[in-house]
């Protein structure tokens, strides 16, 4: 499998050949510092990705028509402003409105209850914010987008086979005439 290296911040060796092309990725965190770091980490990892960053749940949900492939979502979105929607509310709304979108939940609190809460509500995975969290987010993105890329490649092969079969049938029919 061909592998390549993207230079820049957060560069890792990764499988680029099979990643979904031009994926749409939403990053949602009300901590501007963490959001900026996440933006740079993800943009270094996934070439060609359309990355949209939001500091509030409302702005993320208002842009769901962009059909994100992946949403990386903070669990404590209502941390400072309790009247704001929390991450689980947003997760539920995303799962309801866009079931194909994969949601990776993030939290600075490394708690089993938080992890269970996320997974029970349909998160793809849960990551606690730590020194390795950017690497883990990027690994998960590579897996998700790789699966989507493989799936697209699989359907392209099926389409090609069907086209060949159709051409053979037409050619046979013409020969038999």
């Amino acid at each position, binding site marked *: 499998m061909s592998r390549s290296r993207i230079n820049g911040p*957060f560069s890792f060796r990764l499988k680029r050949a099979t990643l979904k092309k031009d994926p749409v990725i939403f990053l949602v965190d009300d901590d501007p510092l963490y959001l900026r770091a996440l933006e740079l980490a993800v943009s270094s990892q996934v070439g060609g990705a359309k990355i949209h960053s939001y500091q509030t749940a409302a702005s993320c949900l208002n842009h769901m028509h962009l059909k994100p492939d992946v949403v990386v979502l903070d669990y404590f979105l209502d*941390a400072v402003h309790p009247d704001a929607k929390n991450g689980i509310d947003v997760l539920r709304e995303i799962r309801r409105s866009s079931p194909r979108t994969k949601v990776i939940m993030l939290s600075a609190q490394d708690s089993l209850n938080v992890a269970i809460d996320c997974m029970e509500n349909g998160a793809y995975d849960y990551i606690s914010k730590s020194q390795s969290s950017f690497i883990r987010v990027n690994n998960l993105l590579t897996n998700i987008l790789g699966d989507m890329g493989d799936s697209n490649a699989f359907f392209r092969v099926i389409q090609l086979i069907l086209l060949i079969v159709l051409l053979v049938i037409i050619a046979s029919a013409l020969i038999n005439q």
Partner: protein
Amino acid sequence: MARYRHTNLGYLKEISNGHQEFIDDMIRVFSSSAPRMVAEMEVFFREKNWAGIKMVAHKLKPGIAFMGISELKQDILDIEESAARQQNLDQLPELISRLRVIILLSIEELKT
């Protein structure tokens, strides 16, 4: 005498492979957001809004880690824990005051 007394950008350099533009950007975001968060915490303390203090402390943790302000790592945990459990609340004024001073000193240091 070491150039940096309060901050250590080693972690930021490590995760960014020394990408200076990224490091400068993170410092800029920290410098603009951290003092605002500390001010918010001080308001919450005056209002005895312990949940608010806990949540702001929680949100300050990544910034303190990114900037390598090791002398605040325990303080920010103590503030969060105190406010969450509503215990040892008498230590909060000193901890919050220290947080404000060290964050301002760190920002000054990061400007150089």
